[in-house]
């Protein structure tokens, strides 16, 4: 039963082929046998999962089931789950039992989903390899000597290894799309503000966005139906009405206008990745799309602009971890200052401290204009590039990441190389646009993701294109050996 998509699981549950309790038990068993190897989960929640499954089974018996009732999922450990440890991958929150549920968690609970556990992630979502986690690196199921990507690496590896049929993730600079690409699965970053940030531990608030990590685009549409929507508890939640994201899945792609940014295919892109993406675009042309070259002239500036803005926002957001009301506190502080200095030094890992220090610097007196304000100006230029490109074309397509999964420890002491690998994803967050990564082939036997970027609130269109692509290809059905 673990080979099914959530769409298929839902029909099987409604047909009483098996119960949610049987389904959940079978996933918990798979988690048990594979987690020590892959390290996808920080916490497993077998007791609450079985209780949730039993209550879902009752709803199914009574004919009150919705499309997600009784379906298991894994939550990235950045989403607060009432009464359960929510660590954000950090020693700072190793002892933190969340006192409330994130809105995403509430919504998916209300939809009848069953939480298997909380997935591993880069500490405070800062990283592209999942190696900055206090709980150790996650292994990529396609090659356990490699990383799954990050920061939602545990969620992506869990879905790829079929330890969960679906998982939640968050994406500040690519943290849903890049691990989806590296693990050969589907990952959707919705428009900024589409999914509530309430209870989702903040990294960079003007960039953070939650979304689903799934086996198929159809599953992503079903998940987004439950996750999206206005939330008055999130001050930047979009008030735009939510559509049925499954309604356009079967629309034809005839006449679809695809833009290929010249800057994404500039000769520096690895040839094996480029040929996978070009083949994917050819496939979409066969389905009726028209392709033209477009310009995103300031793409190269997205890395500097992103690392200034994200670090600045992180230094401000993470000021709350002071050892006073929750989280790690150092032993025997001499005075209040010592309590702050040591609690934060001990509680945060190296990459988080690097970003806090960088962010503090760019916001400090005398440097604010040169760095932070400058980056915000570039952010407008980058956003405007996308806006004018999207007047001409419906979607923009390119690679999700410039490479396949890295080897473990490859970038551990080289943050700059890790940052540069975010080149195709961070600009989308700066602009606040939605984008999806879908499996499009392999390079050196490792999965390669194709990124489809759409206009604001055009999630239905993205899901339609991704679904049609998946109807015509079987890249998303490939499984890593040992997990099929």
């Amino acid at each position: 039963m673990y080979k099914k998509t959530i769409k298929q699981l839902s029909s099987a549950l409604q047909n009483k082929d098996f119960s949610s309790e049987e389904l959940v038990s079978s996933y918990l068993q798979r988690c048990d046998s594979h987690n020590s190897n892959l390290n996808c989960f920080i916490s497993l929640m077998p007791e609450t999962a079985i209780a949730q499954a039993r209550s879902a089974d009752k709803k199914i018996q009574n004919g009150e089931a919705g499309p997600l009732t009784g379906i298991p999922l894994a939550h990235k450990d950045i989403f607060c789950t009432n009464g359960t440890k929510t660590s954000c991958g950090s020693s700072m929150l190793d002892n933190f039992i969340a006192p409330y549920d994130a809105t995403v968690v509430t919504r998916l609970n209300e939809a009848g989903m069953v939480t298997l556990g909380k997935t591993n992630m880069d500490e405070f979502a800062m990283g592209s390899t999942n190696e900055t986690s206090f709980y150790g690196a996650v292994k990529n199921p396609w090659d356990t000597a490699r990383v799954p990507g990050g920061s939602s690496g545990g969620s992506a590896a869990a879905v790829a290894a079929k330890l969960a049929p679906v998982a939640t993730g968050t994406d500040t600079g690519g943290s849903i799309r890049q691990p989806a690409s590296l693990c050969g699965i589907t990952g959707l970053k919705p428009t900024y503000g589409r999914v509530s940030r309430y209870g989702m531990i903040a990294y960079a608030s003007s960039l953070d966005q939650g979304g689903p990590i799934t086996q198929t685009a159809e599953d992503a549409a079903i998940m987004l139906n439950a996750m999206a929507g206005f939330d008055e508890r999130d001050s930047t939640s979009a008030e735009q009405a939510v559509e049925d994201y499954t309604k356009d899945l079967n629309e034809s792609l005839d006449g679809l206008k695809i833009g290929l940014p010249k800057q994404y295919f500039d000769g520096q892109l690895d040839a094996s990745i480029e040929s996978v993406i070009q083949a994917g675009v050819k496939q979409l042309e066969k389905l009726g799309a028209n392709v033209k070259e477009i310009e995103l002239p300031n793409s190269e500036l997205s890395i500097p602009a992103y690392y200034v803005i994200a670090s600045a926002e992180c230094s401000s957001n993470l000021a709350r971890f002071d050892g006073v009301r929750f989280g790690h506190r150092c032993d025997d502080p001499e005075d209040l200052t010592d309590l702050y200095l040591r609690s934060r030094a001990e509680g945060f890992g190296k990459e988080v401290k690097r970003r806090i220090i960088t962010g503090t610097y760019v916001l400090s007196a005398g440097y604010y204009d040169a760095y932070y304000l400058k980056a915000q100006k570039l952010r407008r230029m980058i956003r405007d590039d996308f806006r004018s490109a999207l007047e001409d074309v419906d979607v923009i397509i390119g690679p999700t990441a410039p490479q396949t999964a890295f080897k473990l420890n490859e970038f551990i002491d080289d943050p700059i190389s890790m940052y540069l690998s975010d080149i195709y994803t961070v600009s989308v967050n700066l602009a606040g646009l939605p984008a999806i990564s879908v499996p499009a082939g392999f390079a050196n036997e490792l999965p390669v993701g194709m990124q489809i970027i759409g206009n604001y609130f055009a999630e239905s269109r993205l899901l339609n294109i991704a679904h049609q692509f998946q109807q015509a290809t079987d890249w998303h059905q490939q499984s890593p050996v040992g997990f099929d």
Partner: protein
Amino acid sequence: MSLEKSDIDKIAWLARISISEEDTPNYLHDVSNILELVEKMNNVDTDNIEPLAHPLEITARLRDDKVTETDQRKHFQEIAPAVDNGHYLVPKVIE
């Protein structure tokens, strides 16, 4: 723009993170490299460009002036490092 050791000391203090003497050179190296990476921004003329703080340029919503939070002090105090009688304890700040 190259940083000095004293810059790292100053920023670490502003960020309230203690950094040991032996770790300071690593931060100096890493943060200098990050700043070098972002220097590229200076090659762009942004004279007539307005900064963009938020991708959708939304304005803050107002809500009715009503209490919507419930009292969860007990719940929140359960996860605090040190509490007494409903208060959060910190080292003495007033002699």
